[in-house]
């Protein structure tokens, strides 16, 4: 039985609640506005285009995921937003102001944790606060609050190497959020975790997002993760690099793993699969025939 035998709704069909939610989101102020963003590399005189004409508006408290096959430039895209790379053209505006150098208004969580190994958990969270000139007393009490938020108060005096991967990533989230960024950029943050921990971390992130006024731009290559977390999914492709489609996620909130068998999820997943893994034309006639053994001739 193929997926097409099921009578699935279109991934564009939204229940009234979901449609109303997207209408409300569209009315919120725009936090990040990207217009015709380009990235080219010059290699030996020829230019290689990573992506072209990426335009996107992200509204306040929206959860956007970016997915795409490897090499589509999704990491480059968010590194430009974060200010760690420079674009080759187009503009990106944060609250109407053009983005420049990296700064605390764009918090970032990396796949590789990037906690400072010489600082305790608490001092890691205090780092950004101190960089912004907050006194150490104030920074400490705020850091404690954020650690409580991610459930790591007991570990405030531990060093990062004493924590598990999931705990490290929670510290990294607390550290980024402590700066009260306008947008939280997450670059495959759970990619290095095992499947079970990743699941827990996703639920965890949704809980935090509900409690904190923050807009999230989240990169992943995991379709389920994108479907579970996001409001909108920006699908990027290669050749030509750029946006293939921006999909409004039809799965209603609050989300739960039970929805992984629901019709909205299946139709969304099907669409994402089509976009990301296009069917491979397999020309069997043109493949060389290599006989390995004669014993297997009657295999079929």
């Amino acid at each position, binding site marked *: 039985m193929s997926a097409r035998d099921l009578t699935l709704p279109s991934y564009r069909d939204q229940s009234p609640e979901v449609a109303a939610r997207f209408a409300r989101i569209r009315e919120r102020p725009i936090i990040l506005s990207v217009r015709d963003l380009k990235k080219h590399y010059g290699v030996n005189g020829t230019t290689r285009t990573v992506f072209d004409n990426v335009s996107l508006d992200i509204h306040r408290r929206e959860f956007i995921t970016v997915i795409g096959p490897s090499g589509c430039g999704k990491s480059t895209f968010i590194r430009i937003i*974060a*200010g*760690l790379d420079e674009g080759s053209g187009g503009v990106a505006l944060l609250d109407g102001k053009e983005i420049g*150098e*990296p*700064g*605390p208004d*764009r*918090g*970032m969580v*990396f796949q*590789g944790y*990037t906690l*400072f*190994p*010489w*600082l305790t958990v608490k001092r890691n969270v205090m*780092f*950004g606060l101190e*960089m*912004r000139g907050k006194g150490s007393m104030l920074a400490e009490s705020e850091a404690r609050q954020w650690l409580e938020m991610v*459930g790591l108060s*007991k*570990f405030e*005096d*531990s*060093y*990062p*190497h*004493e*924590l*598990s991967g*999931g*705990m490290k990533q*929670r510290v990294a989230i607390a*550290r*980024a959020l402590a*700066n009260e960024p306008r947008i939280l*950029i997450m670059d495959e943050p759970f990619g290095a975790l*095992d499947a*079970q*921990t990743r699941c*827990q*971390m996703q639920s*965890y992130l949704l809980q935090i997002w509900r409690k904190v006024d923050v807009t999230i731009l989240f990169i992943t290559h995991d379709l389920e993760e994108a479907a579970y977390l996001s409001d909108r999914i920006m699908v990027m492709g290669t050749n030509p690099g750029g946006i293939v489609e921006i999909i409004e996620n039809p799965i209603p909130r609050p989300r739960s793993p039970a929805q992984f068998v629901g019709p909205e999820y299946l139709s969304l997943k099907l669409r994402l699969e089509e976009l990301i893994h296009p069917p491979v034309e397999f020309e069997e006639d043109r493949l060389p025939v290599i006989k390995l053994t004669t014993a297997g001739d009657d295999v079929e």
Partner: protein
Amino acid sequence: MAQRDWLGLKQELPVRRRVLLAILSFLVPLGIWAAVSYVPWLWHPLVHVTAIGDVDYFVEDMEVPRADFEAESAKVQAAGGTLPEGYRVNPVYLPAPHKVIHAFYSAFTTEPRLPNEPWLHESFAHSIRTICWAFFISSLFGVPLGILCGTYRFFSRLQEPFIEFFRYLPAPAFGALCVAILGIDNAPKIAIIVIGTFFQQVLVISNTVRKVDPALIEAAQTLGARGWKLMRRVIIPASISDIFTDMRILLGWAWTYLIVAEVVGTMSGITYFINQQARYRNFDNVYAAIFMIGIIGFTSDLLLAWLGRTIFPWKRRAGSAKKSGTWWSKFKAKPATPEIPAEI
């Protein structure tokens, strides 16, 4: 745990075996030395003459090569005279282990022969003072410059080509120049150690700083750190423990340059002691002094390694150190790290 192989590929050995092998690594060369010294038919190329017999040119207590002794004996025997007597010995420059061990004590009590010569402890104090000054001066400029070169390509491109060139100029070659400029006292010696250490130091440290994980720097930038703060709060702490390890290795090199430097101008310090003792043919004292340098270097390195583990607690990986906390933590009421619960 299953009994593991002694020769497991890239497998760490249990602690007892490690200690055993460490002791053995010292015992094997010591055993060879003892064997050559105490087993009379091993080597012993000379004969210590106890009775001269009828050989004209023999003197009592002289040491002659065995072949000569046997030839003379044969000659005397043929002439029907009295045979010389003697026993086989090693050359004076290979004293037996017990003599050297005794010299570890007696070298300190050997009175200098000349009134203005230093005692052994004075020689050592002089050498250690020289090396400390030299290493301090070298580090005073070398460490900051190394960090700058490692952090900013500007300084790296500006300094490193010249330093790469200069480090190939052998430091002792500057000996005469240093004496001409700085006089014959301790200053030229310090200068030579500085020349030998400084350029390596800049290159080694800048290389270490360059190896700081760029992701950490990027993370710090997204947290609002830049410029001087980025350097002080991220780049330096991220590399400081590796710089410390570099310094330990560089201190070892400084000892090598010390011996060279002490020959320059008027000989001084431990090199002077060793040379004088060799001249007086007190080779047991010579060996004792050389070994003492090794012991001082080795123990100071162990001390620094231990100090490094103490001041950089984050470098102690969970597996490598069972006991968490620093040596002072027993004086400081600090809650132990809570047990890590099930994942998240």
